[in-house]
């Protein structure tokens, strides 16, 4: 599974980082960095939570 980011749509609300701190973080400029874009089964739940919580639907999962 891969996490995909619609970069122009991301506004840096940071809820994804709270949901999946192991997979992504906001850098010093408030830009989202996907630390682990390819997720395995162990991280699937966290990845799903992060995708779901984005208030502007800037994240999605592809298989």
């Amino acid at each position: 599974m891969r996490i995909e980011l619609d970069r122009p749509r991301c506004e840096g609300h940071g809820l994804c980082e709270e949901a999946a701190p192991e997979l992504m973080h906001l850098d010093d400029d408030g830009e989202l960095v996907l630390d682990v874009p390819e997720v395995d089964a162990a991280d699937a739940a966290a990845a799903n939570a992060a995708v779901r919580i984005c208030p502007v639907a800037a994240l999605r999962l592809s298989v």
Partner: protein
Amino acid sequence: MTAPAESDVDLWDDAILADPYPVYTELRELAPVVYLPRNDVYVLTRYDTIRDALGDPETFSSTSIGFNPMVNEALAGTSLASDAPLHTQLRAVLSANLTPRALRGLKVVIDEKADKLVAALAAGGGFEAVDALARAFPLDIVSDLIGFEGPVKANMLRWGQAAMQVIGPLNQRTQESFPIAGELYEWCSSVTARDLLPGSIGRGIFDAEARGEIPAGYAGNIIHQYLGAGVDTTIASIGNIVALFGRHPEQLELVREDPALVPAAFAEVLRYWAPIHVWGRRVTRDVEIGSAVLPAGAQAGILFGAGNHDPRHYENPDTFDVTRNPVDHLSFGYGPHGCAGQGLAKLEGHAIVSALARHMKSWTVSGEQRIPSNITRSLEQLQVTGVEAA
């Protein structure tokens, strides 16, 4: 496949606007989509249905966010009321200065202002919370931020209220508010960079227009949205903070014991009483919801408060609980049209919750007054007495 369930509820009845939650429960338990013949609106009532609709802008178009054709025409060309690709372009400029990253420097200023205001109110022992706090605070913050001064500043409250009111159906409230909203439309169509304070976000919109990031002539539309969307909603949420913690002192006590609960507490206030009652969409194709078909061309109405109290999504939804942390509440909407100002709203809300918890141990509320309003559900008056200062 069948036609959607029907109800003879009038969504804009005075009594329902004052307290819509019993009707929300009735409609939500009836079906996920309910046709209201008296309003000619198909309301979406359940959490998942609402979220799916907001996440599918191709099926649920924003070209009819309002419930009368005049307002939709007046809002054409704002990011609020447009679809992609124009929406994508307008939204980027609108939100560039409102994102959490852009607002980071502002947190200190907002926290200080809230602290000072709330400390003074706490020391007085009692106050009228709507004028003195719920209105005073966001008006101060937003006017500085957008760069308003002079007569515009004095008009912000009535323009902001009217801009929301006219989104309703063509009832008396809408008709009375159109002339006032018209003043706002006119001012926004003639506003220039020089009318806004240097260094402000408002000035920044004109700079973006000059750089060609939005089509020429669109800067005024964005200023219009800042005023229309950013004032009345935040006022509602701050009034609700004071009312809900006045009713639930034990919940305030939890925040006082653990200030890390401040963001969760504000999210719960927003979930518990949605500042926006209903918002429109135009259905672009026949869409199946449950066992019913929502027909192409229908006017949909999204009931954020009904979704926020859906027991299919939140346990004990009618309990106000600051430890719940409902980060996925629907009060900011969701998806590409999700509230562009939510970063600012949170800065303001967190600052107020935190200042109240710091300066007051408890207070009593009385005289809770609501004037029925088409779109925003806001307190008109709220008396705070018996403040026990901390």
